[in-house]
């Protein structure tokens, strides 16, 4: 059982990485990040079955955090749209001065 | 409340479940900061009053702890101990010994006077008081923390707000481009307030990195404990002691203005606003010296004894070098800032003597210098605020328009040169006695010479600012201290005289604790 869950999580994680690296659309990247986060949550739950209930607590904690993260992330996207007239992340490359 | 009741309250709180007086002292400024943060900016009076209330609670709490501290029993009292991160051995562990008591009192007096001294601040008063109170909460905490991790955490809390306080409310200064490294002036705005804030923060953080390294070394070797008492009982390996002590000495020493890592101090203090200079030179620099003694010398006795010669010798350099540098300054704030470098040298010298008199003197000098320099910076702020200049040769005859300021300034100057009857004398005298008793008796002489040079430059400063005909026509709005400022000056001035005339009021706390701790450092 654990193996199945772990495999699914691994697939989800790979999908997430693929999305993050290929997408230029900010919302798409945010979605991919969420996929990766949830893959990790799945891992936590899977290991919790054998290693004790700490993992489940942690997963709940992580979900709560993810919610906060999405709020911040979406706010950033909105700001990006307002200031750069688009949600392509290459529009925001100010770090290279 | 009768004294017996207060004492019994102190004893009761040593048992688990007693009222947390020390937590109250540490958290009151923090709570006040949060409340101020929630208040709208336009409620200026409410903001000031909340700040004053926070300072008052801490000050009152410190007085209560001093009254309740059972001196016949000595040792750690008012103990509070709760786990924070159990698995790592990090605990909210506070307790007061005789040293903490006097340093709490000092911090209480300075923050109380500091709030009064910044009463008339106009720009961004809200943010200013928030940062000031957070800073002071950290300072209070360091003096009573009995957990090394907590000590370090609060130490950082005390150090970091300084960056914003100087960067936002500070004042800039021009430094002439010269010397072998003249080119760096093209890149850096030397003397500017952002520059000063950045230099101060970076140098202190570099020091913190050294402290952290030494701290982790001790943590692992002692078997995952941060408890100061347990660490003090641990026999650390010679290698660790040999390496960790200089790390702590330089790390904490940077904050205490240790030569040659002191250069943040003149620029930082000169750029900082009044109350911040008061707190920083008055209390924060003491954190550094306190750390060297309380952590460095007491936890690593072998290292301390090995390095004592260097600690004392560099301290003597500090005394002389700071005094000579101060003598050549023409900017009022720089004089006082360099004098702090010189006077902190006395503290470190007292620590390095590893004698009873030297340690008593070092702790006493922390208080004496704290009060004296607090008074100095309050006055400098006052003069600067009215004269709009800090250039001493341009001043003169200020005693006419501001007699009260002149009198207070003279008092601070006299304490600074170690006049008997002021706090400075007791401290310097004890350190000199200790230095002569120590293994390196010659330390006494350069230190004495430093005290003489102090007399030269402070009195020369007093003369050119206050004496003579004048004031020159260029100064228009010179006026004496207003009531809120006078409160600050009276408190600090009274402390200087009382501590000079009756040193017993603090010595009854300091001496038994020194007697208890010194053998730890002499193991």
């Amino acid at each position, binding site marked *: 059982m654990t193996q199945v869950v772990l495999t699914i999580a691994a697939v989800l994680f790979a999908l997430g*990485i693929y999305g*993050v*690296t*290929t997408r*230029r659309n900010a919302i798409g*990247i945010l979605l991919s990040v969420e996929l990766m986060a949830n893959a990790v949550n799945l891992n936590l739950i899977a290991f919790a079955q054998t290693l004790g209930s700490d993992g489940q607590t942690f997963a709940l904690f992580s979900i709560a955090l993810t919610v906060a993260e999405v709020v911040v992330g979406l706010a950033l996207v909105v700001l990006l749209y307002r200031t750069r007239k688009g949600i392509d992340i*290459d529009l925001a490359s100010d*770090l*290279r001065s | 409340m009768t004294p017996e009741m207060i004492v019994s309250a102190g004893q009761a709180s040593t048992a688990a479940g007693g009222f947390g007086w020390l937590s109250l002292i540490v958290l009151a400024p923090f709570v006040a900061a949060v409340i101020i943060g929630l208040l709208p900016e336009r409620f200026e009076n409410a903001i000031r009053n909340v700040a004053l209330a926070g300072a008052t609670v801490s000050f009152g709490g410190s007085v209560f702890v001093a009254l309740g501290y059972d001196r016949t029993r000595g040792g750690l009292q008012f103990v509070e101990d709760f786990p924070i991160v159990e698995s790592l051995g990090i605990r909210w562990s506070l307790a007061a010994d005789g040293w903490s008591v006097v340093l709490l009192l000092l911090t209480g007096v300075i923050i109380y006077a500091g709030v009064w001294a910044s009463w008339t601040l106009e720009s961004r008063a809200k943010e200013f008081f928030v940062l000031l109170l957070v800073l002071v909460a950290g300072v209070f905490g360091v003096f009573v923390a009995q957990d090394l991790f907590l000590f370090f955490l609060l130490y950082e809390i005390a150090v970091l707000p300084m960056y914003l306080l100087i960067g936002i409310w500070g004042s800039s200064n021009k*430094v002439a481009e010269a*010397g*072998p*490294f003249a080119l*760096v002036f093209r*890149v*850096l705005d*030397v003397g500017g307030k952002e520059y000063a804030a950045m*230099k101060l923060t970076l140098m202190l953080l570099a020091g913190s990195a050294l402290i952290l390294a030494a701290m982790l070394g001790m943590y692992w070797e002692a078997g995952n404990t941060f408890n100061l008492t347990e660490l003090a009982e641990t026999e650390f390996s010679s290698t660790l002691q040999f390496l960790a002590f200089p790390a702590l000495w330089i790390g904490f020493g940077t904050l205490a203005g240790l030569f040659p890592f002191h*250069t943040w101090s003149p*620029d930082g203090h000169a750029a900082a606003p009044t109350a911040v200079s008061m707190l920083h030179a008055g209390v924060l620099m003491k954190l550094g010296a306190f750390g060297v003694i309380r952590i460095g010398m007491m936890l690593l006795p072998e290292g301390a004894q090995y390095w004592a010669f260097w600690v004392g010798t560099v301290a003597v350099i500090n005394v002389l*070098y700071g005094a*000579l*540098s101060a*003598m*050549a300054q023409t900017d009022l704030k720089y004089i006082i800032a360099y004098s702090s470098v010189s006077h902190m040298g006395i503290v470190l010298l007292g620590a390095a003597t590893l004698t*009873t*008199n030297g340690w008593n003197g070092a702790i006493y000098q922390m208080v004496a210098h704290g009060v004296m320099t607090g008074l100095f910076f309050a006055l400098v702020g006052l003069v600067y605020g009215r004269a709009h200049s800090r250039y001493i040769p341009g001043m003169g005859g200020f*005693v006419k328009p501001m007699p009260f300021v002149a009198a207070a300034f003279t008092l601070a100057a006299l304490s600074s*040169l170690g*006049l*008997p*009857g002021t706090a400075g*004398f007791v401290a310097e*005298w*004890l350190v*000199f*006695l200790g230095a*002569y*008793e120590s293994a390196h*008796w010659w330390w*006494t*002489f350069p230190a*004495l*010479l430093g005290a*003489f*040079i102090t*007399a*030269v430059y402070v*009195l*020369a400063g007093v*003369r050119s600012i206050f*004496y*003579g*005909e*004048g004031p020159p026509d260029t100064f228009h709005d010179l006026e004496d201290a207003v009531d809120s400022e006078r409160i600050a000056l009276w408190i600090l001035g009274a402390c200087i005289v009382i501590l000079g005339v009756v040193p*017993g009021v603090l*010595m009854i706390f300091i*001496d*038994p604790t020194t*007697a208890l701790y010194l053998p730890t450092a002499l193991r």
Partner: protein
Amino acid sequence: MTTAATLGLVAVLGPLVVALLLAVNGPVRRTGVGAGALSVLAAIANLVAALMLANSWWGEHELVDSTEWVWLIANGETIATVGVTIDGISASMLAVVAVVALCVQVFSWSYLSDEPKADFGRYYMWQSLFLFSMNALVLAPNLLQLFMAWELVGVCSYLLIGYWYTKPSAAKAAVKAFWMTKLADMGLMIGLIIQYRVTGGFGFHEADAVALGASVGVVTFCYFIAVMGKSAQFPLHIWLPDAMEGPTPVSALLHAATMVAAGVYLMVRGWPLFDLAEDTRLFMALIGGTTAIFAASVAIVQTDIKKVLAYSTSSQLGYMVAALGAGDMIAGYYHLTTHAFFKALLFLAAGSVIHAVHSNELSNMGGLAKKMPLTAGTFIIGTLALTGTPGFAGFFSKDLVLEALLHGAERNPVLWIPLACCLIAAGLTSYYMFKVVFLAFFGEPSEAAGHAHEGGIALSAPLVLLAVLSIGAGIPVMGALTSQWGHEAHFHVSPIGLAGTSAMLLGLGAAVQLHYRGGSLPGVAALAPVGNIARSEAVDKAWRVAYKQGLRTLAAGVSWFDRYVIDGLVNLSGVALLLGAGRLRAVQTGKGGDYVYAVLLGVIVLAAWTAVVSA
């Protein structure tokens, strides 16, 4: 607590209470007269207490009444005490200080009556603070308290010299006085530190001297350095003439009668120590003799009446130091007490003159004897006492000093030098003092002197009292010294006494010939180069060079080094980091994808490393 201790505390704390009250209570201080009244009241209480003590101790000089409180502790043990110790020496000194202080405070009332009220109040606040400090010094139970009070009288001197703070010269003189004495005080601090190290205390009794053992020489030498500063001994005397910038009553009290004598008092107090230190005493005798003759020669060329008196004070202190150096404590101490009276008298009389003609310059005086007979009379009494005219107080004490040196010289021939110096200085003293008398009180009045008139009762009463003491402190006190202290006093005509008197008469003769008759003396022209040297202020200049070219230059150098080398290195490291970071910044492309690839790369490296480590 004994009655004596209570009286001692009244003497010490009375003025302190007044000073503190005036310090914290601005309104009372600014009434001026109220502040003065309080201060004078404290001085009267002090005098009453001092006289009662002196009366109880008359003939009981070996009785010691000491009350002490713990002041500093170390390891729970007391290391320093404060308190009051009353014995023959401190009781008599207390009385001398009390008399002069009261006279000066009364005199000041009239002398400074034109001052603004606030300044008048401030003056009396400091006078009270001084009286407290001086009494604490006199009654000190140990050398540490003596040192603390010693520094405090120094600060009072600083504040009172700078009383007219708007005058730049007064401000400079105040600071200079403090610096010079503070420099010398380092000697006292070092001495005390060594004494503490060796004996564990700061006592000045015979037991302490014995406990010091071989260190007694070093310790007393260190103490003597401080004495040279405080008691204006060559070459640390340069602050005393400048200190005349203060109001004249201040010069009378601090810079003639009491504060400058504190140095001599320290040696009297610590006599058990100095008694054992043969080498230090030899040095003392030489310095004392040098100062006596040097300051007297400089006094001759002064034109300012207060400067003449200032150099004269320095010279007379040289006598006291020389006597102590020769090993005769009583001679030095006796000269201290008589000098306190007649020098205070001379200063106050000079103050009365200055008050009348509004100038310090002798050229602005002349013929004042007719206008101000009382002042002239008392000034002449003071002069007669100072020059050692037989019958006056100064004669007996100066005679004792010369005797002491002669006895010393019989044991150690080196002491002939200070003896010769003191003898010549006696002649010089007589010359310059009578010169002042003739120039100020006789001859043609100058323009300013024409309108001069005698001051009120507050000005004249102190003069009369001190004049009486300048005569009366002679024979009776001498008798007491003989009977009570068992000191061998000489009422017979001794060769050395005759020599001293002859020197005095020679000086008087020269003054009469040159300044009364307006005649000339053969050989005076040949002395012109000596006069030029005396006027050149060479010592003063040497110190100024040491300060300006030495200390200031060193400070400027250190400051430059700090700003541009030490801080330059700090800045250099900052700049180096900034430049290095500029290179590294190229890594930041700003493209989101690049960062993700970097993260992935990091993960792969970590995973590979973990695999290698675990394998």
